[in-house]
């Protein structure tokens, strides 16, 4: 089975977020980047598990980004992917990324294309569905479980109050949520081998952005906690009504 895993680079979760260029761009100075956890922990690991279970096949990781993304890509190779592709371009929008990967994937006929359910920076959760349209293939989002039998996959999705179970034939796209797999810690041999695995850099295809960012805003800071005497219901009601404006 040929498996493709889309991975992206996101700021470390402890990063202090700030913006530049009139609040239209994320300030990357001094930011520590990691592989998007949904891509790493769930999508990539489930793809590796499938390959191991089948005893054959390949797991390729793909990223759209500049050369300094190679560190994150090699982390994926260290965890166990066989090879990697980097499309050499600045990922300016979901549409742009989807277009680049779709163009590359078209020619390669992958059986399953994995993504994380979303990236933890822009939280778009868009690339999968746009790419599915471009590849004319089914897309199952927010999957928590995946089994493959021959050419047919059984997939669980968490839905409000329960689980939805779906069946789909390959080729298809899937975005992985928590539950799909367990994080793998790369071992030293994997880390050493990653340096020798192929990382192919391919040029981007022409694509335009359909949307542009006009402004980012940080959430307003948390307000102070107010203590109210448990006997004083009147004050509580007044505060909820006048200050918090929730009743």
């Amino acid at each position, binding site marked *: 089975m040929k498996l493709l895993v889309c991975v992206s680079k996101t700021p470390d979760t402890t990063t*202090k977020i700030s913006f530049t260029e009139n609040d239209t761009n994320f300030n990357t*100075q*001094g*930011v520590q980047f990691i592989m998007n956890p949904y891509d790493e922990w769930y999508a990539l690991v489930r793809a590796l598990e499938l390959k191991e279970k089948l005893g054959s096949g390949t797991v390729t990781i793909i990223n759209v980004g500049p050369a300094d993304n190679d*560190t994150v890509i*090699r*982390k994926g190779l*260290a965890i166990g992917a066989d090879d990697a592709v980097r499309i050499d371009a600045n990922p300016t929008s979901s549409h742009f990324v989807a277009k680049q990967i779709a163009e590359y994937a078209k020619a390669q006929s992958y059986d399953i294309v994995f993504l994380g359910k979303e990236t933890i920076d822009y939280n778009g959760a868009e690339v999968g569905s746009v790419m599915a349209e471009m590849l004319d293939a089914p897309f199952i989002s927010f999957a928590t479980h995946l089994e493959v039998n021959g050419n047919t996959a059984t997939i669980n999705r968490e839905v409000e109050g329960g689980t939805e179970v779906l069946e789909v034939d390959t080729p298809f796209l899937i975005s992985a949520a928590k539950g799909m797999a367990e*994080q793998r*810690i*790369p*071992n*030293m*041999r994997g*880390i*050493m081998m*990653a*340096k020798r695995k192929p990382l192919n850099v391919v040029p981007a295809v022409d694509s335009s952005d359909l949307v542009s960012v006009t402004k980012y805003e940080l959430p307003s800071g948390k307000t102070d906690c107010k203590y109210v005497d448990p006997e004083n219901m009147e004050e509580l009601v007044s505060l909820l009504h006048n200050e918090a404006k929730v009743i």
Partner: protein
Amino acid sequence: MANKFISLKNLKFLLYDVHNVAQFTENYDYYKMHDLESFDFMLEAALQIAEKELYPFYQDMDRNHVPEVVDGKTNTHPQIAKFLKAYTESGWMSSHVPEKYGGMQLPGLVNLCAEMIFYAANNGACLFPGLTSGAARLIMAFGSDKLKKEYMEKMISGEWMGTMCLTEAGAGSSLSDMVTSAEETSEGVYKIEGQKIFISGGDNDFSENIVHLLLARIKGAPAGTKGISLFVVPKFRKNEAGELVDNDVIPAGAYHKMGQKAIPAMHLAFGDNNNCEGYLVGEANKGLKYMFKMMNGARIEVGVLGSAISSAAYYASLQYAKERTQGRDVNNKNPEEPQVPIIEHADVQRMLLLQKSITEGAMSLVLEAGRAHDLSHVLEGEEKKRASLFLDLLTPLVKVYPSEEGIRSVSNGLQIFGGYGYTEDFPLEQMARDMRITTLYEGTTGIQSMDLLGRKILMENGAAAKILFEKVTETIELANTHDELKKYAAILGNEMQELQGITMHLAGFAMKGELKRFLADANLFMEYFCIITVAWQWLKQGTIAKQKLLTANPSPEDVTFYESKIHTMKFFFHYEVPRGAGLKTRLMDTEMLTMCKDTAILT
């Protein structure tokens, strides 16, 4: 439990910027297979293992499943086996081993950083792999191919554990008095008989076998240290059919000790039933020399252990000091105003800075020794000798500073918790108990101090001390290029002069043959020597932090990090270095009060 037990950022600063590990990967074939990006991945992976398999079990291993011998078996906490599996699978058990033996050939510097992560998360549990890899390295260095094949391979694959068996009831600090005996039965095979005590990891219930590296006296061997030989004594030996059979090593009991309860310290009886076989390692009567190789490594490990516990205690205290509110600013007596976090009190800041300066100073000192170790591995001829000499000098310092000062550091950390620090609700009381062992095993502080003053300083006409002076001078010159650091460079320069003077003063007694007088205050000499050496490490760190601030276009987080380094360096120079004055006074004093012939004075 606190959220954090170690700072990866600090480790990387020490590894890459202060101790320049790139020098090894760029210049020496032996390490060229590695690069800094891989080190990043490895240290991050080590942190993940520590966070998942070690830290959450730190308190539980202190309280539950504490090893006991029941029906001849010694139980351990079930998580130990799980941790060891993850540790071995990730490659750490063989990380330092050359590639030809299936290892990773990692620079010792990187290995030490990883160990700091593991030990900070759960120091007791990590002694199992620590001892095993030390014992495996000993076989690698001196054992026959047969011993390597039969024992070492199983140890570096993590299937079998290892120990070091030196101590006996009558032979602790004085190993030359050991009486465990060995009698040759066929070539290289000996019948072993004797009792060893305090053997860390001496028994367990998870590994298929345990390989004891044991010191014993071959019957008829000369008295004293010249008659001690080294043996591999497995818990289970292979019979002719290749099956593992009992080798008459009996776990007589586990000591009920103060800390590090995850690992048992065992009383082991060898050959009670006249059926214990040992296999000679290297040549007869050279055992102590061989064992010193393991012990020197183990002494560095104790330095890692001390710095690591100190680190975990620091981050726990720091978090507590930010969260606990108590009292108000001394200028503010208004009870209507809310209380402030205790981190705002000067005395609490003093304690935190003391912890930080000891922890990060100790870590840097340990890595200085790691660098010397790696250099001694890759250099040749005169340069190799220089690196080895320097490592020899640093080893007792690395054993003593992080342990003695670590106790002080953890004690101050506990103080920050107020009364809560004395309860089991917070981890500081456990850390204080765990830390206490570090000044005792692998040679007490007393023994290390006599080693420093009596041997290391004087060896080869003071060659090792000369190397230290040269290196400190280099740092002083570099620091002098920054106005802000000149003052500290000058203080260190003065202290070095003083140190030389004191050393000459004491050496005078040795030359006159007054050995007892020479060594009487060795412990205080050690304390002073350590303060100066760690001041050197701080000036190094401060200088590099300064350079980074001026040249590296740092992010706001980096600016805070480097400024914190410089601030802590200043703290060390203003609060710790002055302690040397009292020690100097005593070391130059002529009144001797500790050499009383008549011990009745101590009533």
